[in-house]
């Protein structure tokens, strides 16, 4: 076919199809029944987009393109197939970082090609056009922030970097605003500079954007990482959109803008679930009291009762209803299969077993649902907070597995507490509460959990999986 018709008609139609597939894909991803199909539709849309871009190029030297795609596919697939369900949040953060740096690299490549290689005599805005020159700089800035921000989020999710605790530099707000200002200045200087002088400014902009990504993410606590990853996802969409302006491709502009907006809304939904404002999350330092005491009372535990699996099994023996509350500890201990085994044994004895899922349990919304689904726990048994909260009063036993802040009654009692107003699961209303936990160390909010001192609470210290295996053994012997 004539290459001209191909470029002017066929390729745009393919891009349009791709756009439509993305829209239906995202739409369906937001409904449980259609989610998987939605993901497939979006993937097909991406395939169309890639085919379209190859057709648009016509006959060129494909070796670098093919090589790059092959390497990327192998690395991406290897990560995706080998990652454990418990590490999904980290994986999403990592992929997001790659997306961000890709947009920055595209912009830098276009800049280098058009300005440095082809028009070394003129200025940047003459060679690229002012609009395109500005979007190149924005692409580099946003892409760079997304890249290092995502990597820091990844390390925090893994519990590295001060175990995910916020890192607060002195005068960090001034530093951040100063660097943001500097990045705009470097970008402006680069646009106005002559081709050879601009390289320094572009490199300076790239360096500052990478530093900004780090500085914007380190003050945020590990528990808030889901929100941050979601926000960075939104940024990577905007970065892709900017890259679309640079190469003059509406498909990138549309897909990037949709992901940017959808990511922002999702971020907002997550913030609402935690009863925090986005600004409050981003300013960071949650759980670290900058001075003054956060919440009355001492942080020492005075009257904690603990027991072993045998005693717990005896109480479970007579329970008619049991609610299991999973948290990040379950994921760490890889205890999702053990918990289902225990639930199956209890159900076989006629006990009613359900799961109470807090919206922000784990390191990412839906984290617990994914884990328990992996262990074949029926979807209907996982109840959301609003549904399960009225049930606790009539429940015999609650088993809390590696969750902490999401069951802390202080959230609704003490307005000065760092987690004041956060909706919690009312586990304390049940007749008996077992808390399976490795130690009395605080959760991400960094505060003591007064539930542990309640009369109806008993701690079972240990790794969630080992404790559950002990319980399974005891229940078997009943």
């Amino acid at each position, binding site marked *: 076919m004539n290459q001209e018709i191909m470029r002017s008609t066929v390729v745009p139609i393919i891009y349009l199809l791709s756009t439509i597939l993305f829209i239906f*894909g995202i739409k369906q991803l937001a409904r449980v029944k259609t989610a998987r199909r939605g993901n497939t539709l979006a993937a097909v849309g991406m395939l169309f987009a890639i085919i379209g871009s190859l057709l648009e190029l016509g006959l060129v030297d494909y070796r670098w393109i093919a090589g790059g795609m092959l390497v990327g596919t192998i690395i991406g697939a290897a990560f995706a197939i080998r990652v454990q369900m418990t590490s999904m949040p980290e994986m999403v953060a990592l*992929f997001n970082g790659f997306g961000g740096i*890709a947009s920055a690299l595209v912009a830098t490549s276009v800049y280098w090609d058009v300005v440095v290689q082809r028009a070394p005599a003129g200025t940047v805005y003459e060679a690229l056009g002012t609009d395109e020159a500005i979007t190149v700089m924005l692409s580099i800035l946003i892409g760079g922030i997304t890249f290092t921000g995502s990597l820091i989020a990844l390390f925090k999710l893994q519990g590295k970097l001060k175990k995910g605790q916020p890192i607060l530099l002195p005068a960090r707000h001034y530093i951040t605003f100063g660097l943001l200002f500097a990045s705009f200045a470097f970008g402006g200087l680069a646009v106005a500079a002559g081709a050879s002088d601009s390289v320094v400014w572009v490199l300076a902009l790239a360096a500052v954007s990478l530093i900004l990504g780090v500085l914007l993410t380190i003050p945020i606590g590990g528990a808030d990482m889901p929100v941050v990853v979601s926000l960075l996802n939104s940024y990577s969409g905007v970065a892709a959109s900017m890259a679309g302006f640079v190469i003059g491709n509406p498909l990138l502009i549309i897909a990037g803008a949709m992901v940017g907006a959808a990511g922002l809304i999702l971020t907002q939904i997550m913030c609402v679930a935690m009863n925090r404002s986005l600004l409050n999350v981003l300013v960071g330092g949650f759980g670290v009291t900058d001075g003054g005491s956060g919440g009355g009372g001492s942080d020492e535990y005075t009257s904690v009762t603990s027991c072993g699996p045998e005693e717990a099994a005896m109480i479970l023996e007579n329970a008619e209803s049991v609610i299991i509350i999973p948290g990040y500890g379950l994921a760490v201990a890889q205890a999702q299969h053990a918990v289902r085994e225990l639930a199956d044994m209890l159900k076989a004895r006629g006990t009613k077993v359900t799961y109470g899922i807090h919206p922000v349990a784990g390191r990412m919304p839906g984290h617990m649902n994914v884990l328990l689904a992996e262990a074949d726990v029926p979807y209907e048994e996982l109840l959301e907070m609003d549904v399960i909260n009225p049930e606790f009063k009539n429940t015999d036993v609650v088993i809390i597995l590696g969750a902490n802040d999401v069951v802390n009654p202080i959230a609704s009692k003490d307005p000065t507490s760092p987690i004041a107003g956060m909706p919690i699961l009312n586990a304390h209303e049940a007749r008996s509460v077992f808390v399976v936990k490795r130690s009395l160390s605080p959760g991400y909010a960094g505060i003591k959990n007064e539930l542990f001192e309640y009369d109806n609470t008993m701690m079972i210290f240990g790794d969630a999986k080992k404790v559950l295996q002990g319980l399974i053994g005891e229940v078997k012997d009943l």
Partner: protein
Amino acid sequence: MTLGPLLIGIYVFVLAGFVGFEMITKVPPTLHTPLMSGANAISGITVVGAIAAATTGAPTVANILGALAIVTATINVVGGFLVTDRMLRMFGKKKKPKALKPGAEGVAAQSREAVSK
């Protein structure tokens, strides 16, 4: 009124943004992670830009940057969609009759053990 390419681009950007806002309204918490991960894979669309940036075989700076962009964007796309599918597959699993394949179950459990060690 004639719109230059930049203004058309801005129109498209703003309107697509509204589409994005409208699509995500009530999302059950279960789907927050997969939705984020799927949207993240779509932001790998920048691979199209990367392909356009690495079109000659010559080892110039622009080409090397373009090729790097292809690698990273492809990781984002392929990994993102695969990982999302893996998560969603967990939700879609049929409740299989337990007694059907005890052997397979055992093997799966063993391999899980091996992985977790």
